[in-house]
């Protein structure tokens, strides 16, 4: 089976093994089949040597969290994310991965009104204890009502996305307040850009993702305003449209995308000068979402932004190893996902922090399900700003 992988990208791995300690699944299982180096060797065996695609080989690909921690560890800059996305696209195209129910569930993310209504129903069912939240990895409580999104100006777009808008709109509103405190007029994207397609490309649904990318680009065309993103996974996905679609238009679009912390880090003085700030008296551990640290490589902006607003910001000592959330991974691979999370919760415990700041909704839900007090970094900034105003 030809996986459609770029030959130059595929041969770039010299199998040195420096990725191994940075792979969350290898660290748990100790098996080469669950390592980046091993997965690349299997891709080569299939594409170049004609090896058949066995169930065990598929498991090797399915167990990858797609955190891309191996990419920042790789001295030869092997583009593992592209290779894994390509492999999954080929496997999904052949009907070997991503079962029908998963495809249906993902399709729903494109339909904003349906998603919002469904989420309200789900929230109700959770209140009535009709849903085993813990077993399904769902939050113990979800909002029944969502305050409306509102436009406060035309300086920047705030990308609101799909699940995050339905489940964590409070975060968007807090982010918007922080931006406004810095004197920035914000327009939430809402229905103009329903879903970035990150979960779809992870599941190997390439054609669908491309269609969604075009939809998002159409919705946000017409000007060159910066597009700020408060979810690391969505930010990484939007920044990759240039590669995904391979057009000048898509590359220009991707160049407009910023993680909101990345964008704010350059404007901290502006923010501080408008509101005198009393830092929150708490110890906050910064959890680096993989798609901020390993893909966008913008994770250092989070402690920089938090610094003036929180008394004690601490880093974790685990080299940015994944937390195991991985978009839909926690649902698809609950056992591995939980084992990976245990290492993260241990790192948080070692840090002595009482609150964890996470800039990605998937990580935040996953860690909260383990009993941690998780907030979006800008929720903390918002809290500090509003306390100072009082």
């Amino acid at each position, binding site marked *: 089976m030809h996986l459609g992988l770029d030959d130059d990208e595929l041969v770039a791995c010299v199998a040195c093994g420096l990725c191994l300690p940075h792979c969350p699944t290898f660290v748990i299982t100790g098996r*080469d*089949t669950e390592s980046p180096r091993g997965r690349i060797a299997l891709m080569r065996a299939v594409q170049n040597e004609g090896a058949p695609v066995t169930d065990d080989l598929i498991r090797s690909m399915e167990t990858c969290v797609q955190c891309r921690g191996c990419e920042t560890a790789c*001295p*030869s800059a092997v583009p593992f994310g592209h290779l894994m996305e390509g492999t999954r696209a080929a496997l999904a195209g052949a009907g070997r991965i991503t079962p029908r129910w998963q495809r249906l569930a993902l399709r729903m993310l494109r339909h904003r009104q349906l998603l919002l209504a469904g989420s309200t129903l789900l929230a109700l069912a959770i209140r009535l204890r009709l849903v085993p939240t813990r077993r399904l990895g769902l939050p113990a409580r979800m909002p029944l009502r969502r305050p409306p999104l509102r436009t406060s100006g035309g300086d920047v777009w705030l990308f609101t996305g799909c699940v995050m808008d339905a489940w964590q709109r409070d975060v968007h509103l807090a982010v918007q307040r922080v931006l406004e405190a810095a004197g920035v007029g914000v327009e939430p994207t809402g229905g103009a850009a329903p879903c970035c397609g990150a979960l779809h490309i992870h599941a190997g649904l390439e054609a669908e993702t491309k269609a969604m990318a075009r939809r998002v680009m159409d919705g946000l065309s017409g000007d060159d305003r910066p597009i700020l993103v408060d979810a690391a996974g969505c930010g990484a996905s939007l920044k990759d449209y240039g590669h995904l679609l391979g057009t000048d238009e898509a590359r220009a679009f991707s160049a407009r995308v910023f993680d909101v912390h990345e964008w704010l880090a350059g404007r901290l003085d502006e923010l501080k000068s408008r509101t005198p700030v009393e830092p929150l008296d708490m110890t906050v551990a910064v959890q680096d979402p993989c798609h901020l640290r390993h893909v966008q490589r913008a994770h250092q902006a989070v402690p920089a932004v938090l610094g003036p607003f929180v008394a004690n910001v601490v880093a974790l000592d685990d080299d940015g190893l994944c937390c195991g959330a991985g978009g839909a991974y926690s649902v698809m691979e609950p056992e591995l996902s939980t084992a990976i999370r245990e290492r993260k919760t241990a790192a948080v415990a070692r840090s002595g922090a009482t609150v964890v700041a996470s800039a990605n909704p998937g990580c935040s839900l996953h860690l909260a399900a383990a009993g941690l007090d998780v907030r979006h970094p800008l929720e903390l900034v918002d809290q500090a700003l509003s306390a100072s105003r009082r």
Partner: protein
Amino acid sequence: MARTLAAATRRVLGSRRRGDRSAAVPATDDTDAALVADLVEAIGADRVRADAAARYLASRDASIYKEGNAGPVCYPGSTADVVACVEVAARHGRAVSPRGAGTGLAGGAAPLGQPVVLSMTRMDRLLEIDLDNGVAWVQPGMVNLDLSRALAPHGVHYAPDPSSQAACTIGGNVANNSGGPHCLAYGVTSAHVLAVEVVMSDASVVTLGDLTAEPPGYDLRGAFVGSEGMCGIATAVAVRLTRNPPAVRTMLLSFDDVSDAAATVSAIIAAGIVPAAIEMMDQRCVTAVEDFAQAGYPRDAAAVLLVEVDGPAGGVAIAGERVADIARRNQAISARTAADDDERARLWKGRKSAFGAVANVMPDYYLHDTVVPRTRLVEVLERIYEIVDRHDLIVLNVFHAGDGNLHPILAYDSRVPGTGERVQAAGREIIEMSLDMGGALTGEHGIGVEKREYMDRMFSAVDLDQQSRLRASFDPHCRMNPGKVLPSAHSCSDIGALRASDAAGVWG
């Protein structure tokens, strides 16, 4: 019971979860089915894999040797598991090959003849720290760097630091008697391993060496360290703890000419200075690693030296000045001292990612690991460049200059027809030349399968027979990692333990 076992075995041999796809799973032959069933019974289904993908990956390490052929792969969690696996393998007349992180560069972990592979990655715990005696017991699957990190709060570390230390395991270090940049001052693995618990080929468990300074009797520990898995499987290792030096100074010296850098190395040693490390990289290597490490290595220098001195603060300052002075007298174009721990870490990150960064230049590489007399470094380097030019290849030089341990990396693209042959020919010439200069075949990477056939270039038939007899005294039936190190004419009855089968190649 039997039915559960049969089901577990089926799971291990290849999952059948999605019925109709099972046709794609290759059948492992019947003998293996019985072997796998026994292994599963002995250590549990979740610790055994016999499917094609697992075996394919267990058949290779980081070398270019791709002819390995793994049988079932076991992931023991304890010494008892290892004993059980060795027993089952023996009962089935099969050999056993251990495997750490698979970062080896000579095919030492590439299994020959479809043995049972013992992947030691799950035995990765630090068992005991005894600060009073400066010893720690660790399991073999523990990653080298993880050990030093775990020791850091106590102000001590494990000194041998191979370039692959972020990934490689203590067990693999013991097997290869691994070196590393800091072994110039501190000595290689054998100087830091006091005792080893070993599962022998008859499944008995022995402890070689002990924790006293001068144990009585033959130094069996010394014979075991560096035996490349052929004398038994290490299941616990007592390592010496080294106090962290009170002061460290790391310097980056750059040169317009490779021979000036080599002359500086000799001059430093001749001046009686013993740096903790002296590493050299040539321009091509610097360029490849700088893309990744962003450590501020000068891309325009023909060669750089990374020199580290450590010890009491006063001595370090003096030694640092003397090194810089010697470098200047040997036409160094710059001498930079790392300002803080962060800068030092980035410089070392660059050096230690050199092999992995080769794909920035070419997708494949082949390297040798010869040791030459330090006084002939300049001459040897010139010869290497000449040989490589003649074969129309590219070489990246990165090596432990302080002890003359070369690592000429021949970078190439195996997709270009005929390149492999040229690489092999150039490699052979480099080895012959190094030996002619009074050098040795390997400094730290081991012989494995890759350098096996060069052994008789270095040792006489009598030497090799003695080595073979020593090995046989540990493993009379040649069941432990057979086919390695000794050239075939001297490898006792190895062949008997190898299954008559071709290399695994690709499955299907």
